[in-house]
Each structure stands twice: as C-alpha cells, then as structure tokens.
C-alpha cells in the first residue's frame, strides 16, 4: 500500500513541476472538406504534431490554430475519415485540407485505459468497434442481440425467442466455470450491472421445485435495458491483454459503450419512426391422426375424435400466431453553443414490441440527457444520464414439472383436442394432463409483467490543470451510478384448470423485487508530453466500486378470484437475498508513441482489492504490456502494415459468499434450526486470474480498399474457482476449490474488409469475420466431475475433466452390455461427445450503396456446437411428434444408450437485412416545408431466415439462462420469431 501511495506522489510531482512556458506562436486558419464532394467536415481535430496545440473545425469546416513560428506539421483527423499529416512552412497562414472517407473504418479511436484512447491505426489489441450506425440498422429488442454477428471472437447466443432479450455473450471462450462469466459493461465510465433478477415463474412451473425463483425462470440479463439508439460506439475488449486496467473485473472481457454527445452549433433534430411486426419463424408440428382407432393405438383416449371439428390443430399457430403491431419512436436533439462551451444531446425513445403470443410484449421508454459545460478555459463538467422504464412480459415457457409450459402441453395432447374457448369464452379442461392444463387458457390468463425502472447517470469533471506547448496535465473525476428496481409479478388466477390441481390451492401470485445499485468513483490524472520524437501519455488513478443487490420474493398460494396481492393468499412464503461487494483499485499506465506515430508501447498496472476475496485487505496486481509497430517500408500494393503484440493479466472476482460455509437456517415448529450448508466454502478464496497473450497484424492494401486483420491469442485462466462435486458421504455436495485448477483458450480471429466498388454512385463494402476458439482444462486438482444443475447424462451434460474441453458434452454413448429384447440398455456407457462451443463462427456483412438506395445485410454462420434437445424427448416419449416414426426410432435409440438428443447446432442465420432509400433533397424539403435535411425510408428485417439441420425450434437456446459451460439445453422453449420494420428516419 505504502509503495503504491508513494509512487503516486512521485508521478504527481513529475507531472507538476516539469511545465514549460509557451513559445512564440502564429495563427494558421483554413478549412477541412470531404475529398471529392467538398462538403465541410465538422468537428475535425487539427493538431500541431509534437505539441499540445490544436483546435476543432466549426460547422463550416473552418479552423484556426496557434502554430509555433518555425515550420510545423499538422495532423488533421476526424472519425470516419482517413487522417492526413500536412506540413506548414514558416509563414503560411492559410491551409485547406480534404480528407477521404474511411470506408473500412481504419482509424476509429479505441480506448486503451480508463480515460485514454488511441487511433485504431496504433492500437496493439484486436479491439472490435461497433458504431451506433451499424448497431441500429435493423432494430433489435436488446443491445446484446444487436451485436450478434458483428464482433469476431464473441459467441452471442439468445437464450430463447421470448420478447425482451436474454442473451449471453462469451468473449474468446470460457473464462470461468463457476464465477461470473458476463463481460464487464462500462457505459460512459459507469460500470453497469448485468444480473438477471428471476421473477419466480418456478412457483407455477415447478421447474426446480419450491416456492421461489430459480435459474429456470427464463429471465433477461438486464443489459437488455440499455437503449441502442443512444450509442455512439461500442468497443469490445476481448480479454485480459486489453482489459487489464479493469482489474478483477476484466477477465471476461470489457464492453465499453460510449453514448452520443452534443456538438457545437445549431440544434439538429433526429427523428425515427418505425412500424413493424413479427411472426413465428419455426414450428415443430404435431402428429395428425386419421381415425379414432389410430388414436387408441397410440395410447390416447380417443373420446371426442369423432366429434372434433378440426382433426388436426396447429397448436403452435393458435398460440404463437399473433402478428400485432410493434412500433418505435426516437427523437433526439443534439447541439451546443457556437463556441462549444455548452453541448447537449437529449434523446427519447418509446418502443413497443408485441410478442407472437398473447400476453407477451416488450415496452421501453427512455430519456437520455448528455450535457457538457465548459467553465473558463480549463474546466469541463459533463453529466450523462438515462432514465428508463421497461416492461417485459414473457409468459411461460421452458422446463416445468406441472404440465403447464406450452410445449409440455402440446407434446402431451393429441392434436384433435380443441383448446379454443367456446362461444361463451369457456375453455375445456385437458383430459390428457393430470393438471388438466388448457394451452390457450394459460396463455390468456397467466400474466408475467416485469417492470424495470432504471437510472444510469454519471457526473464528471475534467480539469485541464495546465497546458503548455509541450505538455498537458488533466484531472478527471467521474462518479457514476447504475440503479434499478426490478418489479416482477407472476400471476396465475384461480380459475386456471391447473391451479387447484398442482398444489391444492387455487391461484398463485409471486412478487419478486430486485433492487440493484452499482456505483463507482474514478479519479484519473493524465499527463501528456509531446516532443517531436515521441508522445508520452501517463495516467494514474484510482477507482472505488460498490455493488448492492437485494432481492425479495413473496409467493402467495390460494387466492380469491380477481385478487393479485400476496397478502390475501392462504399461504405465503418469503425469501430475501442480499449481496454487497466493495472494491478499491489503483492504476497507472504509460503510453509511449514514437517513430512518427509508428511505434506505440503501452505498459500499465492495476492493483485491486475486493470484499469478495478471502482477504479483503489484500491487493492483487494486474499488469499489462503491449506494443504495435507500423512497418515503414512496404511493397507497392500495401498501404499500411502493423504488427502488434499484447500481454496482460486480469481477474475475475469470486462470487459473493463463496468464502463462507453457511449455517443454513430453517424453521421447524416455530423454532429456528441451523445445519451446515451442503456447500463447503473456501475461506482464503482469491480472484481467478486470466493471463492473455495476443499477437497479430493489420494490413491495408490496394490503396486502402482492403484490410486484413489476423489475431492469434492464448488465454490462460489460473486459480480457477470450481464448485466441485465432492463425495456426498462427506455431508457436503459441493466444495469450493481453487488452487491447482486451470484452463487455456487458444484462438484465432480474422477480419477481412473489402471496399469492392467505390464510385460516385456505387459503393460496395463487405466485412467478413472469422473466429475459432479451443478450450482445455489443463489442471484439475480433483477427479473429473459433473457440474451442478444439468438434467442428466442420458440427454447430455457437461463434465469438468483434465485434458478435455471445459465445454465438452458428456452423454450416454452406447451400451456396455447387450441390449434387452425391447432394445433397452441397462448399463449405459458414458463419454465425451463433442462440445457445446462452436467449431468456428463467421459473419458476412455487406453494405451496398447505389445512389440514394442503400442495401445492407448480415449473415451469421456458426459451425458446430452441440445442443441438447430435450424437447424432442418430450415428443418422442408421447409419440405425438409431427413424424411419429422418426420419433419412435429416435426414442428406441435413446433407450439403447445412443446420444440422440445431443444434436449438432450448426446454423446460418440471416440476422439483418435493410433496404433504405434517401429521398432526394428537393422532395424532402417539399414534404417537410424545407425543414428536413435528409430523410430516409427504410425496410428492415431481423432473423428472417435460418438454415440449419437442427431439429428443434432454434439452436440458439438455453433453458437455464446464461451459463458458463453447458449453455444449450433446449427444454420446451419460447419459439423464435422474425421481425420486420418499416421506418422513416429524418434529420431537421
């Protein structure tokens, strides 16, 4: 501690007392325009190389900059354009520069630390940058879905087709097995919470038994709340080498989101109106019976077959056939004072996504205000805030043990049974289920609203303590908070057929509340030193973080009709969970840019302590080092070649409570008892450590019409925390272990961007990404074990085993003895059978501009990766699948020990397609009385088509929500849908 503090002082001293006085200067002014069209470029930066001197262009593209008396060099850059370096001879005072469009986005700014960034031309890591424009081409329900197919190295999988999101993101393979696996989300410097608050659906589905919530409640990770419309850029730091500065939260990668800012000048109003709909995109189908005798032969009561008006219902269409209107309205105003002293960006969104099932929907209202005010010459205050409300209603799907989930009902009911209500609205009880559940009565009466009220806010002060010609010192203090209240209700009214039958009591209601507050305070001191041979950026700082989570669940069973409050219930059950974690870190980073901005060397360290560690006073250090070099001498066709290498270490905090062995309390006849938990805690637990080495090259060639980027990485996780199964004869079922456990990920990422056509009227840009990752458990201190929570090894589970992939599928793979006469295996053989992780992924994006018409598309190909299709098992068991012969054969093979439910999940999805048309300026002007600048009409679709051999609804599925290692368990999920939108986008 002492050493950290004293080094802080010496850095501070160095920064403060090496200031120089300004030298003699002259003024140079000019204009920056777009190459070809001559349009002005607003807010381009004009810097004098080797000094702190610089300025930004105004809305006419004009600038005036102080330049030293001697000959100087100016560097002019603007995101979206290729930078230019121009010599200004002594005596020159007028300069006009034109910049070419950066079609392949070679020069975006990329974050490298808490408060620093460099041009992607120099970045030493493979950081994926997704612009707001790319993010919002085809409206997605949630931010993480909008990223699908756009980030090489990220496996982004939807957990189900239910509205409102629910997606897991894995960056460069598995980085943890039992601790958190979600990347860290940082929005404008604020750490954002991505927990899922379970709504207590389990109280009616009985998926995990009991009265409270479970991880089978089909909940949404709350990053889904963030409004994609407000986002300027997303930078994805995929591992420790880039994210080391985030310390014990950086190991799963960091997703850095920057929201839109105001710009100097008169206000620009952006308006988008979208109207759309969605439709069921895949069905499983049901068996159709030709005669009552066939029904009897299949083992079902055929009463009612003769009288049935419809002999073969399409239950899925009846339940999921809704095509209601969805809409989204976005309005934003962006502007500022002419001097740029005040800038603001204010935006509001109102969105409604109707689900394909009655009583499913996703609504969002959000209001964002980003305001910046400069006081005097050196002080800038920024306040970014977003207030939002979402209402997610996902109804009932997934695993259940009460015969209430739609596909459980469909797979148990012969298709001549009529679920539709009669003329008086009366439903019939289902004689084929013990709980008599009626598919459509469930859908119309069960309500599952989840309201989230969320405030994301940050206040920051930037203080330019001093600036001289050669150096500058800035202090940034940022305090941010992400606070939300998640209020869920699950209501199954007493008139439901299953309601008295499941628990003897009519009606169930669950109130689940989650209150989450994440707050952080960052202080960063940045010193920049400019000299002609080099630029050195030093940052030091500290970050204090805190997270409070409190969830309470109140379940009521036995309700009077029409009453939805828990206190009226005959029986009530209460549950509370609390979590607090606090952390403190110090960091320092040095970036050294030299050799005419060809060589960038970065070194940094973050040292952090946390209350989740066994020793909460101990600091853990996370160093990083990286270098990139742009090769100066190139063959004729190559424009730029950069080699890069980066090494870094980051951590992953132990989950809250893992250090304790709890005395679990319970009540018996009004007396409280305590017994040891089934989980044996690890008192000296420490963060998991991820050490990553990545290297690669970026090559621009054919006159910057092509860019190839290749990255190879190795990521090793040591001190891997495992909830290891122990011999249950210990009295425990699980023991938390750490020492001697490690896994390694090796992977490759390739990006190829091509500007295939570029002319005045025609432009075609294609982006192709490829990534593959192979994981392996290299060290394991206990015998191989089955991780908690999988259904069964007869269907397909995971298994933690040394020398094997952490995501291997462990399943029955045959029979040790001859099969019985009926084809059943009584001594099944179990073994490794493929992997939950895909073999590789590819994304194909194409942007085609033809005059005013713009066409973009995104294809997402995932090769391999097993999915455990238990839904098939439901249909095979009952014989009511669409193809009963196939189902019977599969079931026979399953009983004989074959891994028939572990299926290949390869797919190719048309994620996005957009066709837009920019109205001619005259027409736009006439239509909007001269107010509108550019007006576009757009048609877009999402997930329009899937090509796959997977026999279930969608290979993107996870019954247990986000999972580290055995993601894809397909258990009667909510089916996928495709979305279509027609939009008008205008700027005024």
């Amino acid at each position, binding site marked *: *501690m002492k050493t950290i*503090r004293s080094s802080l002082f010496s850095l501070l001293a160095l920064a403060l007392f090496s200031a120089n006085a300004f030298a003699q200067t002259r003024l140079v002014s000019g204009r920056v325009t777009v190459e070809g069209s001559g349009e002005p470029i607003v807010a381009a930066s004009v810097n004098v190389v080797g000094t702190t001197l610089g300025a930004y262009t105004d809305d006419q593209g004009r600038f005036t900059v102080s330049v030293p008396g001697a000959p100087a060099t100016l560097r002019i850059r603007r995101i979206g354009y290729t930078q230019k370096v121009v010599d200004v001879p002594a005596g020159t005072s007028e300069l006009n520069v034109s910049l070419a469009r950066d079609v392949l986005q070679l020069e975006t700014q990329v974050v490298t630390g808490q408060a620093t960034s460099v041009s992607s031309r120099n970045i030493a890591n493979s950081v994926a940058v997704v612009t707001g424009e790319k993010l919002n081409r085809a409206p997605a329900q949630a931010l993480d879905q909008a990223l699908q197919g756009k980030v090489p190295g990220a496996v982004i999988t939807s957990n189900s087709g239910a509205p409102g999101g629910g997606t897991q993101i894995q960056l460069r393979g598995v980085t943890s097995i039992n601790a958190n696996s979600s990347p860290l989300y940082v929005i404008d410097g604020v750490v954002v919470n991505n927990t899922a608050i379970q709504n207590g659906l389990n109280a009616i589905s009985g998926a995990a038994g009991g009265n409270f919530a479970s991880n089978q409640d089909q909940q949404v990770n709350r990053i889904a709340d963030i409004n994609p419309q407000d986002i300027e850029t997303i930078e994805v730091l995929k591992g420790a080498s880039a994210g080391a500065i985030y310390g014990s939260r950086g190991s799963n990668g960091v997703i850095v989101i920057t929201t839109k800012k105001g710009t100097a000048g008169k206000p620009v109003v952006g308006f988008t109106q979208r109207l759309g709909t969605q439709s069921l995109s895949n069905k499983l189908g049901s068996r159709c019976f030709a005669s009552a005798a066939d029904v009897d032969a299949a083992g079902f009561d055929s009463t009612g077959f003769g009288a049935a008006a419809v002999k073969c219902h399409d239950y899925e269409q009846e339940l999921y056939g809704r095509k209601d209107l969805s809409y989204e309205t976005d309005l934003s105003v962006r502007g500022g004072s002419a001097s740029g002293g005040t800038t603001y960006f204010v935006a509001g969104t109102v969105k409604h996504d109707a689900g394909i099932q009655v009583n499913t929907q996703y609504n969002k209202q959000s209001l964002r205000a980003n305001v910046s005010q400069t006081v005097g010459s050196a002080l800038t205050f920024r306040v970014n805030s977003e207030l939002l409300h979402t209402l997610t209603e996902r109804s009932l799907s997934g695993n259940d*043990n*009460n015969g209430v*989930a739609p596909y459980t009902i469909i797979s148990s009911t012969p298709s001549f049974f009529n679920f539709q209500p009669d003329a008086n609205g009366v439903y019939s009880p289902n*004689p084929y289920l*013990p709980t008599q559940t009626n598919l459509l009565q469930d859908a119309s009466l069960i309500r599952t609203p989840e309201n989230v009220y969320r405030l994301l806010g940050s206040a920051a002060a930037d203080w330019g*303590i*001093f600036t001289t010609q050669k150096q500058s010192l800035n202090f940034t203090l940022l305090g941010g908070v992400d606070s939300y209240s998640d209020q869920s209700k699950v209501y199954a009214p007493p008139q439901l057929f299953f309601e*008295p*039958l*499941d628990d*003897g009591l009519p009606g169930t209601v669950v109130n689940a509340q989650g209150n989450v507050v994440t707050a952080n305070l960052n202080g960063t001191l940045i010193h920049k030193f400019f000299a002609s041979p080099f630029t050195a950026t030093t940052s030091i700082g*500290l970050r204090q973080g805190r997270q409070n989570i409190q969830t309470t669940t109140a379940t009521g069973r036995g309700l009077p009709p029409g009453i939805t409050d828990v206190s009226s219930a005959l029986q009530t*059950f*209460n549950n509370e969970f*609390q979590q*607090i*974690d*606090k952390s*403190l870190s110090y960091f320092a980073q040095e970036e050294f840019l030299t050799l005419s901005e060809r060589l960038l060397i970065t070194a940094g360290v973050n040292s952090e*302590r946390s209350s989740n560690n066994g020793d*909460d006073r101990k600091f853990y250090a996370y160093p990083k080092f990286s270098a990139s070099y742009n090769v100066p001498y190139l063959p004729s066709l190559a424009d730029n070649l950069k080699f890069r290498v980066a090494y870094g270490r980051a951590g992953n905090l132990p989950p*809250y*409570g893992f250090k*304790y062995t*709890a*005395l679990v*309390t*319970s*009540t*018996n*006849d009004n*007396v409280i*008892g*305590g*017994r*040891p*938990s089934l989980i*044996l805690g690890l008192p000296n637990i420490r963060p998991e450590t991820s050490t990553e080495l990545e290297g690669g090259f970026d090559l621009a060639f054919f006159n910057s019409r092509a860019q190839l980027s290749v990255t190879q990485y190795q990521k090793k996780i040591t001190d891997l925390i495992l909830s290891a*199964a*122990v011999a*249950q*004869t*210990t*009295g425990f*079922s699980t023991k938390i272990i750490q020492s001697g456990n490690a896994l390694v990920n090796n992977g490759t990422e390739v990006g190829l961007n091509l500007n295939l056509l570029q002319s005045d009227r025609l432009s075609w840009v294609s982006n192709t990404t490829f990534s593959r990752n192979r994981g392996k458990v290299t060290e394991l201190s206990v*015998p191989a*074990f*089955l991780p908690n929570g*999988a*259904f*069964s090894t007869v269907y397909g*589970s995971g298994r933690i085993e040394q020398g094997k992939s952490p995501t291997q599928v462990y399943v029955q793979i045959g029979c040790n003895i001859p099969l*019985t006469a*009926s084809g*059943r*295996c009584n001594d099944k053989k179990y073994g490794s059978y493929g992997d939950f992780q895909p073999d590789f992924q590819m994304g194909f994006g194409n942007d085609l501009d033809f005059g005013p018409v713009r066409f973009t598309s995104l294809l997402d190909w995932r090769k391999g990766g097993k999915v455990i299709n238990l839904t098939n098992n439901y249909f095979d*068991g009952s014989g009511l699948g669409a193809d009963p012969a196939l189902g019977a054969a599969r079931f026979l093979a399953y*009983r004989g020990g074959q891994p028939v439910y572990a299926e290949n999940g390869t797919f190719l999805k048309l994620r996005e397609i957009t066709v837009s048309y920019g109205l001619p300026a005259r027409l736009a002007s006439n239509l909007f009385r001269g107010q509108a600048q550019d007006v576009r009409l757009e048609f877009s679709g999402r997930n329009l088509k899937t090509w796959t051999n997977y026999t279930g609804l969608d290979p993107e599925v996870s019954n247990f929500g986000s999972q580290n290692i055995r993601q894809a368990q397909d258990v009667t999920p909510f089916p996928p849908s495709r979305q279509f939108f027609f939009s008008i986008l205008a700027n005024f």
Partner: protein
Amino acid sequence: MKMKKHIVALACVIVAIGACKDSTSVPDLNNPSVSSVGGALSPGNLQILLTGVIDRERQALDFPFYVFPATMARDVWRLDNSESRFESETLEGRPSPGGFVGTRGFPVYFNAIRAAQNLIDAVPKATAEFTDGDKLAITGFVRTLKANDLYRVLETRDTIGLPVALSDPNAAAPAPILCKPKVLAYISAALDSAYADLQAAKAAGTTTFPATLPAGWTSIGGDYSDIDNEIKYNRGLKGKIELYRGLAPGGTAQNFTDAKTALDIALAGVPATAAGLAGGPYYQFSTLSGEVANPLFDSRIHFTPSVHDSLQAGDLRGSKIITQSTPASLKVDGVTFTTPYDPAVTVTSNPQNQTRPIPILKNEELFLVRAQAKIGLNDYTGAAQDMNIVRSVSGGPALTPYVTFANQQQAIDAVLYEKRYSLLTDGPQRLVDLRAYNRLNAASYPPGTQLAPYTSDPYNWVLPYPQSEIDARGGNIKCQ
C-alpha cells in the same frame, strides 16, 4: 498556477487516502456462519443445532424418498407428463447415477449426519447450565437420530453398502464403503451405545431432554422429550435393525432374539388400540412461512391397481385408497399406465394433506417387525398374536384373526399383507421387505403383466450411488 497545483495534489492525496480507509469487509448477509455456533454449547446453541438436525431429517424426506421405493415395490406410479424417468428408471431400466433418480435420498441424509456429528462433537464444550445427565441425554438422543439417518440411506442402497464414518472433504479418499451386514452391525452398536447414554442420563437424574423438541416429537404420537420415550424409540429402531441383520446374509437366530428383546422394551405397555398403534415420533408439517409442507401432497402419485385389488374384503385400511371417477393415464416408453386409485393422503383435493404428519417409526410397524422376528424364530403363534393386534385394530372386525401358520411362507405372506396396508404411505418399508424375503423378481411379478409391463424390467431393488460419489471414488464403489 502554483496554488492550483497544490490544490490538485492535496485533492488527489485526500481521495487516495480516504479510499484506503474505507473498509472493504462484508460479512455473509444471508446466513450465519457455521463458526457462529461453533463455540461453547449453550442452551441457545443446542436448540439451534438440534432443531437443525431434526429439520434436516424432515427435509430429507423429499417425495422421491417414498415414491421411488414404492414404485420399485409395485405399489405406486407417479404419472408426470414432463418426467418419464419415474417409470423408465425404476420399472423399465436401471436408474442413472447422473440423473435425479440416482441422487435421491443420499446427500441430504449425509448432511443431516454431519449436522448430528457436529452436535455430538460439541457436547464436551457444553456450558455449566447442563448437568452430566443432560449431556448424556444429548449424546444418547442425537446418536439415535444419526443411526436412523444412516439406516434411511441403507434402505435405498442396501447391497451396495455405505461408509459408516463421514468422509473428510479435505482428504484424498472418501471413507471406505462397508457391506450391508457390517453397516447394520455398526448401526446396531451405535444404537446400543446411545441406549447406554440415555439410561445413564436417567440414572444421573435427567428425565426430560434439555431442549424443546418440535410437535412431531411431543404431541402427535407421544412426548419424546421424555427420556423414557427416547429409550423406546431407540429400542424400536434397534429391533428393526436386528430383524434385517437376521434376514441379511450371515444373519443368525440371535439377531431375531435381539430384535425381540429390544422390541419388548419398545412396546412395553402399548395398548392394543388405535392410539397405541399410532404411538411414535412423527415428522409434522406446516404451510406457514419458512416451514415445510408434506412432500407427498401431490396429485400425480397414484396407487397401482394391485393395491386396490389385493385388499381383503372388509379391511378398514381400504380407506387409505381413493377411487377416482376418471383414471389417471400416461404412456411411458410404449407402455400405458392407467389407474383410478389414489392414496387418500396424497390427493391435492384435500388441503389437510399438506399438513398431515408422517410417522418416523410407529408402534403399528414395531408390532409387525416383532412378528417378523418371531417368524425368524419359527414362533408362528407368537407372530400371529402380534399381527392380530394390528389386524383387529387397523384392519377391523371383519377380518378373521390369524391363529398360527403352517409354514414360514404362509407367515411371511401374512405379515407382508399387514405391513403393506398398515404402512401404505409411510416410507420404503414395502421395498425393504420384498427385497429381504426375495419377493422382488420375475417369479412374483411376471414380465408383461400390469405390475411388470416392460420386458426389460430389471426388478430394481436399490437406487445407485450418485455419480459424484462414484467419481470421487474413482469409479470403485465395491463394499468391503
């Protein structure tokens, strides 16, 4: 300018130091830690730890504790559209150690055993409020509870055997597995030493247990905070253990004699009335917040038709069977299970079933266990007398009393009938008996019939060890 620098420096230092001072320590906010009751054993701590042991045993009585053994014993089908393994892994094929059938009735009992062991280990640290007699009462009673927990696991694992010591979670290898006769011998000896403790407690002047027991132990089938009753429970259990030692390989007539001796103590003074037969400790259930409801409250549990059809005319125990107007039906692996018969105590149409107590060891069972011991000693008349107590009180006057039996076979048939209907939903007793008398096979239940509908029926008599236990033992679970 210089002033500014100093302010900056000062601000930075204040923030840095201030942050250091802030404590990052956070306790476990959701549970007390094990160490919080790990100090001296005060009356308060005893109450918490004892309730913990008793409650854990109650929680271990999850519904599959009854449903799986009763299904294997052909009395019950649990028909669940979303879960075919209730039939496919009990009647059609072997239970999978990696699935939910194979793990039942295992970890929670061992957790209860650890809770009991922690309490026994804490007795030397008892505070001065406890007399020597109190301490003996605690060890005597808790050892009896622990013996019962171990026996409960043995009921479903039988010939696989069990370790009798808790495995050490930090040791390289788990405790060795002993074969069934050795496990029974261990439980028997443990009960004897607990018996000695309880007797010594009484001799030292402790007649009442020094902590509050829940209602199931005090106000349903007798007050078991009375040390005399704890002794009776201990001896009842001992009698049951000795009976099955006698029936196990290597069993001798001495086991049956020991069983009879122990049961004579347990049943001394028990009247031949309904209340007398119902005497014994119970698990009580409640629907209040934080409590546990009866785990058998479940509309998917059904009796097989044989339970209804085998009942003798006029047997009052027929009231335990409800005939529904619509039969329950489910097709599993090509076999359709259909039955209109439900246990009266499981149907959800009767809300009182949620709070119905479940007997732990009732006198009705002990009379029949004593009859079994007498059969083992070829005392058929004595066995008939014990059976008749149950038959007349529970079965009713319409049933003809037994006089004696021509041979062991007949006597066993009779006692199996009485036990089946007297203990119809109490636990795995039926499976244990069918297994002990070698009745669970194709000769008794011919393949292709209603009770053995699968031709692949393996006549499962045990549940496997959970996969994690097998893994922790490197795949070797052979008993010694």
